[in-house]
Protein backbone atom coordinates (compact mmCIF):
# COMPACT_ATOMS: atom_id res chain seq x y z
CA UNK A 1 0.00 0.00 0.00
CA UNK A 2 2.30 2.73 -1.21
CA UNK A 3 -0.70 5.08 -1.53
CA UNK A 4 -1.46 4.72 2.16
CA UNK A 5 2.09 5.62 3.15
CA UNK A 6 2.04 8.68 0.90
CA UNK A 7 -1.25 9.84 2.35
CA UNK A 8 -0.38 8.94 5.90
CA UNK A 9 0.55 12.44 6.93
CA UNK A 10 -0.98 15.37 8.70
CA UNK A 11 -1.23 19.13 8.66
CA UNK A 12 -0.93 21.01 11.91
CA UNK A 13 -3.87 23.08 13.14
CA UNK A 14 -1.73 26.22 12.91
CA UNK A 15 -1.91 26.08 9.12
CA UNK A 16 -5.69 26.26 9.20
CA UNK A 17 -5.63 28.99 11.86
CA UNK A 18 -3.38 31.13 9.65
CA UNK A 19 -5.36 30.34 6.48
CA UNK A 20 -8.68 31.26 8.12
CA UNK A 21 -7.19 34.47 9.55
CA UNK A 22 -5.90 35.53 6.13
CA UNK A 23 -9.24 34.75 4.46
CA UNK A 24 -11.12 36.69 7.15
CA UNK A 25 -8.78 39.68 6.77
CA UNK A 26 -9.18 39.62 2.97
CA UNK A 27 -12.97 39.67 3.45
CA UNK A 28 -12.72 42.58 5.89
CA UNK A 29 -10.46 44.54 3.53
CA UNK A 30 -12.91 43.85 0.71
CA UNK A 31 -15.82 45.25 2.73
CA UNK A 32 -13.80 48.39 3.45
CA UNK A 33 -12.26 48.90 -0.01
CA UNK A 34 -15.12 48.20 -2.40
CA UNK A 35 -18.06 50.56 -2.69
CA UNK A 36 -20.20 48.23 -4.79
CA UNK A 37 -22.74 46.97 -2.26
CA UNK A 38 -23.09 43.55 -3.95
CA UNK A 39 -19.34 42.94 -3.72
CA UNK A 40 -19.53 43.94 -0.05
CA UNK A 41 -22.16 41.24 0.53
CA UNK A 42 -19.88 38.75 -1.24
CA UNK A 43 -16.99 39.68 1.04
CA UNK A 44 -19.24 38.98 4.04
CA UNK A 45 -19.83 35.50 2.58
CA UNK A 46 -16.05 35.12 2.33
CA UNK A 47 -15.64 35.96 6.03
CA UNK A 48 -18.37 33.46 6.95
CA UNK A 49 -16.48 30.83 4.96
CA UNK A 50 -13.27 31.55 6.85
CA UNK A 51 -15.16 30.82 10.07
CA UNK A 52 -16.60 27.63 8.55
CA UNK A 53 -13.14 26.43 7.53
CA UNK A 54 -11.83 26.85 11.05
CA UNK A 55 -14.87 25.10 12.56
CA UNK A 56 -14.36 22.09 10.30
CA UNK A 57 -10.63 22.02 11.06
CA UNK A 58 -11.25 21.93 14.81
CA UNK A 59 -14.03 19.39 14.34
CA UNK A 60 -11.53 17.09 12.65
CA UNK A 61 -8.89 17.85 15.25
CA UNK A 62 -11.06 16.97 18.25
CA UNK A 63 -12.92 14.16 16.44
CA UNK A 64 -16.31 15.69 17.32
CA UNK A 65 -19.08 16.24 14.81
CA UNK A 66 -20.87 19.09 16.63
CA UNK A 67 -18.86 21.78 14.87
CA UNK A 68 -19.90 20.46 11.46
CA UNK A 69 -23.55 20.84 12.49
CA UNK A 70 -22.70 24.43 13.35
CA UNK A 71 -21.27 24.87 9.85
CA UNK A 72 -24.57 23.59 8.50
CA UNK A 73 -26.49 26.19 10.53
CA UNK A 74 -24.10 28.95 9.45
CA UNK A 75 -24.86 28.03 5.83
CA UNK A 76 -28.60 28.23 6.56
CA UNK A 77 -28.22 31.69 8.08
CA UNK A 78 -25.95 32.81 5.21
CA UNK A 79 -28.54 31.75 2.65
CA UNK A 80 -31.29 33.68 4.45
CA UNK A 81 -29.02 36.69 4.85
CA UNK A 82 -28.02 36.73 1.18
CA UNK A 83 -31.67 36.56 0.09
CA UNK A 84 -32.83 39.44 2.27
CA UNK A 85 -29.70 41.52 1.62
CA UNK A 86 -29.95 41.17 -2.14
CA UNK A 87 -33.62 42.08 -2.15
CA UNK A 88 -32.83 45.21 -0.11
CA UNK A 89 -30.09 46.09 -2.62
CA UNK A 90 -32.42 45.54 -5.59
CA UNK A 91 -34.96 47.84 -3.91
CA UNK A 92 -32.29 50.49 -3.31
CA UNK A 93 -31.12 50.21 -6.92
CA UNK A 94 -34.68 50.66 -8.14
CA UNK A 95 -34.98 53.90 -6.18
CA UNK A 96 -31.53 55.40 -6.73
CA UNK A 97 -30.27 53.71 -9.95
CA UNK A 98 -26.94 52.94 -8.31
CA UNK A 99 -25.28 50.16 -6.31
CA UNK A 100 -22.92 52.57 -4.55
CA UNK A 101 -23.24 52.21 -0.77
CA UNK A 102 -23.00 56.00 -0.60
CA UNK A 103 -26.67 56.25 -1.58
CA UNK A 104 -27.60 55.13 1.92
CA UNK A 105 -26.33 58.51 3.14
CA UNK A 106 -29.76 59.82 2.13
CA UNK A 107 -31.22 57.89 5.07
CA UNK A 108 -29.68 60.46 7.42
CA UNK A 109 -32.65 62.72 6.87
Amino acid sequence: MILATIFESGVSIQFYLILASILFAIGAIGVLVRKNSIIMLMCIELMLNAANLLLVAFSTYFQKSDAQIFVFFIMVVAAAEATVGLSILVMAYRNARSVDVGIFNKLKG
Partner: protein
Amino acid sequence: MNGAALIVYILGGLTIGSSLMVILSKHPVRSVLYLILTFFLISGNYIMMNAQFVAVVNIIVYAGAIMVLFLFVLMLLNLSKDNEPKTSLTMKIAATLAGGSLLIVLLAAVKDVIMPEKIMITAMTDNQQGLVNNLGEVLFTKYVLPFEVSSILFISAMVGAILLAKREKQIID
Protein backbone atom coordinates in the same frame (compact mmCIF):
# COMPACT_ATOMS: atom_id res chain seq x y z
CA MET B 1 6.24 16.92 3.96
CA ASN B 2 4.68 14.39 1.65
CA GLY B 3 1.84 14.00 -0.82
CA ALA B 4 -1.34 14.84 1.02
CA ALA B 5 0.17 17.68 3.03
CA LEU B 6 1.50 19.18 -0.19
CA ILE B 7 -2.01 19.05 -1.72
CA VAL B 8 -3.40 20.87 1.33
CA TYR B 9 -0.76 23.60 1.13
CA ILE B 10 -1.36 24.09 -2.60
CA LEU B 11 -5.14 24.26 -1.98
CA GLY B 12 -4.58 26.85 0.76
CA GLY B 13 -2.39 29.01 -1.46
CA LEU B 14 -4.88 28.86 -4.32
CA THR B 15 -7.71 29.76 -1.91
CA ILE B 16 -5.88 32.89 -0.77
CA GLY B 17 -5.04 33.82 -4.37
CA SER B 18 -8.57 33.50 -5.69
CA SER B 19 -10.08 35.30 -2.70
CA LEU B 20 -7.63 38.15 -3.33
CA MET B 21 -8.86 38.25 -6.94
CA VAL B 22 -12.44 38.65 -5.61
CA ILE B 23 -11.62 42.03 -4.12
CA LEU B 24 -9.08 43.07 -6.77
CA SER B 25 -10.99 42.45 -10.01
CA LYS B 26 -12.86 45.48 -11.31
CA HIS B 27 -15.65 43.68 -13.10
CA PRO B 28 -18.41 42.49 -10.67
CA VAL B 29 -19.17 39.31 -12.65
CA ARG B 30 -15.51 38.33 -12.52
CA SER B 31 -15.59 38.84 -8.75
CA VAL B 32 -18.53 36.46 -8.48
CA LEU B 33 -16.77 33.83 -10.60
CA TYR B 34 -13.61 34.07 -8.49
CA LEU B 35 -15.74 33.71 -5.35
CA ILE B 36 -17.27 30.52 -6.78
CA LEU B 37 -13.72 29.25 -7.42
CA THR B 38 -12.84 30.11 -3.81
CA PHE B 39 -15.80 28.10 -2.54
CA PHE B 40 -14.76 25.10 -4.63
CA LEU B 41 -11.21 25.31 -3.24
CA ILE B 42 -12.56 25.54 0.33
CA SER B 43 -14.67 22.46 -0.44
CA GLY B 44 -11.44 20.75 -1.49
CA ASN B 45 -10.03 21.61 1.91
CA TYR B 46 -13.09 20.05 3.55
CA ILE B 47 -12.62 16.85 1.56
CA MET B 48 -8.98 16.68 2.63
CA MET B 49 -10.22 16.91 6.24
CA ASN B 50 -12.65 14.04 5.58
CA ALA B 51 -15.72 16.26 6.04
CA GLN B 52 -17.52 15.08 2.94
CA PHE B 53 -21.05 16.14 3.88
CA VAL B 54 -19.97 19.73 4.58
CA ALA B 55 -17.95 19.77 1.34
CA VAL B 56 -20.92 18.71 -0.78
CA VAL B 57 -23.34 21.04 1.01
CA ASN B 58 -20.84 23.88 0.57
CA ILE B 59 -20.81 23.32 -3.18
CA ILE B 60 -24.59 22.92 -3.44
CA VAL B 61 -25.62 25.79 -1.17
CA TYR B 62 -22.84 28.32 -1.67
CA ALA B 63 -21.51 27.76 -5.18
CA GLY B 64 -24.85 26.49 -6.47
CA ALA B 65 -27.56 28.56 -4.82
CA ILE B 66 -26.18 31.71 -3.24
CA MET B 67 -23.72 32.61 -5.98
CA VAL B 68 -26.30 31.97 -8.71
CA LEU B 69 -28.55 34.39 -6.82
CA PHE B 70 -25.74 36.96 -6.86
CA LEU B 71 -25.17 36.38 -10.59
CA PHE B 72 -28.89 36.81 -11.30
CA VAL B 73 -29.00 40.10 -9.41
CA LEU B 74 -25.90 41.34 -11.25
CA MET B 75 -27.54 40.34 -14.54
CA LEU B 76 -30.83 42.07 -13.63
CA LEU B 77 -29.10 45.28 -12.59
CA ASN B 78 -26.95 45.10 -15.76
CA LEU B 79 -23.79 46.23 -14.01
CA SER B 80 -20.56 46.66 -15.93
CA LYS B 81 -17.11 48.11 -15.44
CA ASP B 82 -18.31 51.59 -16.39
CA ASN B 83 -20.82 52.17 -13.60
CA GLU B 84 -18.62 50.55 -10.96
CA PRO B 85 -18.39 53.02 -8.06
CA LYS B 86 -14.87 54.36 -7.54
CA THR B 87 -13.03 54.39 -4.24
CA SER B 88 -10.52 57.15 -3.58
CA LEU B 89 -6.85 56.21 -3.10
CA THR B 90 -6.77 57.52 0.47
CA MET B 91 -9.75 55.36 1.31
CA LYS B 92 -8.07 52.30 -0.25
CA ILE B 93 -4.85 52.83 1.71
CA ALA B 94 -6.73 53.40 4.97
CA ALA B 95 -8.87 50.29 4.41
CA THR B 96 -5.85 48.13 3.61
CA LEU B 97 -4.03 49.39 6.69
CA ALA B 98 -7.06 48.68 8.87
CA GLY B 99 -7.53 45.19 7.44
CA GLY B 100 -3.80 44.49 7.64
CA SER B 101 -3.67 45.42 11.30
CA LEU B 102 -6.65 43.13 11.91
CA LEU B 103 -4.66 40.35 10.24
CA ILE B 104 -1.60 41.10 12.40
CA VAL B 105 -3.68 40.98 15.58
CA LEU B 106 -5.24 37.66 14.52
CA LEU B 107 -1.87 36.14 13.61
CA ALA B 108 -0.31 37.36 16.86
CA ALA B 109 -3.18 35.74 18.75
CA VAL B 110 -2.84 32.36 17.02
CA LYS B 111 0.94 32.13 16.81
CA ASP B 112 1.35 30.79 20.35
CA VAL B 113 -1.23 28.02 19.94
CA ILE B 114 0.26 24.78 21.19
CA MET B 115 -1.59 21.88 19.61
CA PRO B 116 0.99 19.31 18.65
CA GLU B 117 -1.28 16.69 17.12
CA LYS B 118 -1.68 16.71 13.37
CA ILE B 119 -4.97 16.61 11.50
CA MET B 120 -5.08 13.44 9.49
CA ILE B 121 -5.81 14.65 6.00
CA THR B 122 -6.97 11.62 4.17
CA ALA B 123 -10.07 9.64 3.45
CA MET B 124 -8.13 6.56 4.53
CA THR B 125 -8.20 7.37 8.22
CA ASP B 126 -11.00 5.89 10.24
CA ASN B 127 -12.44 9.10 11.64
CA GLN B 128 -16.10 8.95 10.75
CA GLN B 129 -17.43 12.18 12.24
CA GLY B 130 -17.78 13.98 8.90
CA LEU B 131 -19.90 11.35 7.19
CA VAL B 132 -23.63 11.69 6.57
CA ASN B 133 -24.54 8.76 8.81
CA ASN B 134 -22.95 10.28 11.89
CA LEU B 135 -23.90 13.90 11.15
CA GLY B 136 -27.53 13.01 10.52
CA GLU B 137 -27.75 11.24 13.83
CA VAL B 138 -26.36 14.23 15.71
CA LEU B 139 -28.48 16.72 13.75
CA PHE B 140 -31.78 14.94 14.36
CA THR B 141 -31.21 14.08 18.00
CA LYS B 142 -29.08 16.65 19.77
CA TYR B 143 -29.73 19.63 17.48
CA VAL B 144 -33.30 18.94 16.38
CA LEU B 145 -34.72 22.12 17.97
CA PRO B 146 -32.29 24.51 16.19
CA PHE B 147 -33.00 22.60 13.00
CA GLU B 148 -36.73 23.26 13.34
CA VAL B 149 -36.17 26.89 14.30
CA SER B 150 -34.06 27.39 11.18
CA SER B 151 -37.10 26.50 9.07
CA ILE B 152 -38.97 29.42 10.69
CA LEU B 153 -35.97 31.61 9.85
CA PHE B 154 -36.18 30.48 6.23
CA ILE B 155 -39.90 31.21 5.98
CA SER B 156 -39.48 34.67 7.46
CA ALA B 157 -36.53 35.37 5.14
CA MET B 158 -38.57 34.25 2.13
CA VAL B 159 -41.57 36.38 3.09
CA GLY B 160 -39.28 39.33 3.79
CA ALA B 161 -37.50 39.02 0.46
CA ILE B 162 -40.77 38.83 -1.47
CA LEU B 163 -42.19 41.82 0.41
CA LEU B 164 -39.05 43.88 -0.12
CA ALA B 165 -38.57 43.12 -3.80
CA LYS B 166 -42.25 43.43 -4.77
CA ARG B 167 -43.13 46.53 -6.74
CA GLU B 168 -45.57 48.77 -5.00
CA LYS B 169 -48.86 49.49 -6.74
CA GLN B 170 -48.33 53.23 -7.02
CA ILE B 171 -45.12 52.77 -8.99
CA ILE B 172 -46.80 50.59 -11.57
CA ASP B 173 -49.72 52.98 -12.11
